[in-house]
């Protein structure tokens, strides 16, 4: 893996290169492969003590203590309506920034950080095959015959969840 695009004194070619390349954090969820732009990922943690919250929506796994701040953790598989896998030693919490809020997502495994050329990402895809609401899928990347669903962190908890969460907040 090259480190082009880092630092200011790189060649024009390298800059072009950087604009064309996206770094993705790749993780697994119920057998599928997903990617998130590394820009929106704050850190990746092992599954530590999660305190369950009574009366919270189903997809809310609970809350964790992230160095003195309490952040919610969602079960991403549950959010996507996928089968939830039992916790294992590979289970991770991916801490992201979504619409200015910090939250954790429970995923089955984080495998790697992948560099992908933007022209290898197909943004207009037919979602019927994926079974996932197209709204929070930014596009599909294709690397070595693997298909990666690239998620849009800002859209992950929009629409219905916001409605559901708003209901909690109001009454």
């Amino acid at each position, binding site marked *: 893996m090259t480190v082009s695009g880092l630092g200011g004194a790189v060649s024009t070619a390298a800059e072009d290169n950087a604009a064309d390349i996206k770094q993705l954090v790749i993780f697994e969820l119920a057998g599928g492969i997903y990617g998130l732009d590394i820009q929106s990922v704050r850190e990746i943690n092992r599954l530590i003590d999660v305190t369950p919250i*009574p*009366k919270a929506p189903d997809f809310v796994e609970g809350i964790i203590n992230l160095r003195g701040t309490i952040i*919610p953790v969602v079960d991403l598989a549950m959010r996507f309506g996928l089968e939830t896998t039992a916790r294992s030693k590979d289970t991770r919490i991916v801490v992201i920034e979504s619409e200015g809020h*910090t939250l954790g997502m429970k995923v089955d495994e984080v495998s790697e950080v992948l560099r992908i050329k933007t022209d290898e990402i197909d943004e207009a895809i037919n979602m019927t095959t994926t079974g996932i609401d197209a709204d929070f899928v930014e596009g599909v990347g294709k690397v070595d015959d693997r298909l990666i669903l690239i998620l849009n962190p800002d859209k992950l908890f929009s629409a219905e969840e916001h409605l559901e969460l708003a209901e909690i*907040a109001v009454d």
Partner: protein
Amino acid sequence: MSVYDNLVGMEEVLDEFIIETIELLEAVNEDLVHLESDPDEELVNRIFRAFHTFKGTCGFLGFTQAKDLAHVAEDLLNQLRNGKLQPSGAIIDNLLASSDWFAQFINDVKEREEKVYEIDPLIEKLKASMGDGAAAEAEAIAADGAHEAEGEAIATDGAPAAEGDGTGNGQADKNEVCIQRLDGFLNKIETELAGADQQITEENAGQLAGQFSDLQLLCSENQLPTIATLMDYTHQFLVAVEKGKLLPSAEGNVVLVEVLHWLHEVLDDGREQAELQDADNSTLLEDLAALIHGEVTSAAVSKKQGDGAAKGVKAAAGGQTIRVDMERLENLMNLAGELVLSRNQLGQAYSTLAAEKTADSSMDNLDQVNNSLGRITTEIQEAVMQMRMLPISNVFRKFPRVIRDLARDKGKQMELVLIGEDTELDRSVIESISDPLLHLVRNAADHGIETPEIRKAMGKPETGTITLSASHAGNHIIIEVSDDGAGMDAEKLVAKALEKGTISSMEAESMSYRDKLNLIFRPGFSTAAKVTDVSGRGVGMDVVSTNIKKLNGAIDIETKVGQGSKIVIKLPLTLAIVTGLKVAVWDEEYIIPFGSIIETVKLDTSALTKVEDKWVIRFRESVINTLYLDEWFSVPVDKDKKDQEYYAVVVSVAEFRYALVVTGLNGQEEAVIKPLGQVLGRIPGIAGGTIGGDGKITLILDVPELVHRMGLG
């Protein structure tokens, strides 16, 4: 063009003006009420100075109407000061009305609203008060000599009584008197200065300021407005030095000497031409303005010497204070909270390490550091908390005025006794408690205290007493509002509630004595036959109850028919840190804030009965609603464990009581409340979480919300 257009870039000055005026108004209200019962010279002086300051600053900022009103009020006060008038009820009324007007005005300034106010009636009233005085004054003058009479009469702004006194050679006489008096003042001031090596000091500034204030008055009385303005500026400058807002400086001394010098010139001219001419000296005016302005702009962090404006505020006793943005304090508070958590975690880590390692000198060192860090952290936290604390006198001080107005209004006689004004509590609590207390005090005065005739007939003293007291009890503050009035009749309350349809007759039968009294907190329940402007402000006792609930507080009523009522409010000292009871619900733990807890009992499950789908328990003669927390929170229950013990935590939400059933009581916990993250919004029944020493999160119950949710509240 708006008056605010001229003030662009002076927001700081304007904000400072707002804060200062609000503070002064509070003191004025208090002083005026005092003054009525105790005509004290110092009180009059203080009120006079306040209005004088209003006049000056409002003029400076371009609020003409406010300046005009302050001016008339100041004139009236000046007559009180000279002993030409006595503070009658009517005069106090008018002055209080002026103070109210200013409060309204300041509110508008806060919103940057410019209005044209209807102030003429008020000004007329103030002038009319003076009119009385002017007549009395005329008598006094007869003995005193005609010269003085003329001068003072003009001061009353052409009040009718004075007009007739004008004589043919009045003008010349007036000049003569004025010149003499000016000369007299100059002499006094110069002697004063000579005694202090021509230096202005914090000690002599007050004296000097007073003389310039009198000079200003003298000048405006004699139609020398421009000179008067200069005198006013000099006065303001000196007051700033007296209060320690400005340090005595060489520049200040020079300017003062120049002012005096210039005044001599004016005087000499006046003598030559046998007529004092109004004269302008813009250079001096600018110099003074620059001096004063230097004070105003730095006032945001100014060291303020307590000027004793508010009796009873103990901080005023020479203490130096600094104003800090609430947000910064809030931030500091959060950081202190973090520090506490980290300290706890370090402690935990140390214990683990100590258990594994054998003791050696490095471990001893670590132990010491750990201990001292712990101590310092606790102290920092306490110090930060302390900073947010304000004495409850901030709320109490407005009540004497309320009682006074009500007494006059209703033809009642009553006295307000304040106890424990120094009791401190968190600023946020102070803010939220103010309105409920106001309502309770009004209620006591309006519904509690009887008219003097009735009281006499009942063999009570004609003057009713309302007592407002505050005291600390552990981590709580207890506020009591009591009166020796009519008291409440529980049966009458029930009858009333039935009549209004607030309760059904079935409900009425099952009500305990407490429940019956608590009816007054129901929405739409008011025992006052007619809606007065006292109780008719749209704030009912139900709002009191709601506010107390929001603060995690509890209310209790004690009353005896014919002897009076007492309403007891229990509040947490602060909202940021909760002291609570850690309870176990099977394998999970929750914290219930102590503020809500009445008591805990070991539960005899056979005492529970189900009424219409809900569990209830008989507790101290009341039937109270009961909630199994495990059911409510869907906590996994260990069904096999047959002999599980249960405890009931009896909580109070405002005036209602509930029992929360838990499986264990795990001791006291001091918790810094943290939000659960915005994504989750608010989870019903959970106030937030706290991070324990082991890094684990424990949820803190929001008891009022919880009972509301379970359909009981």
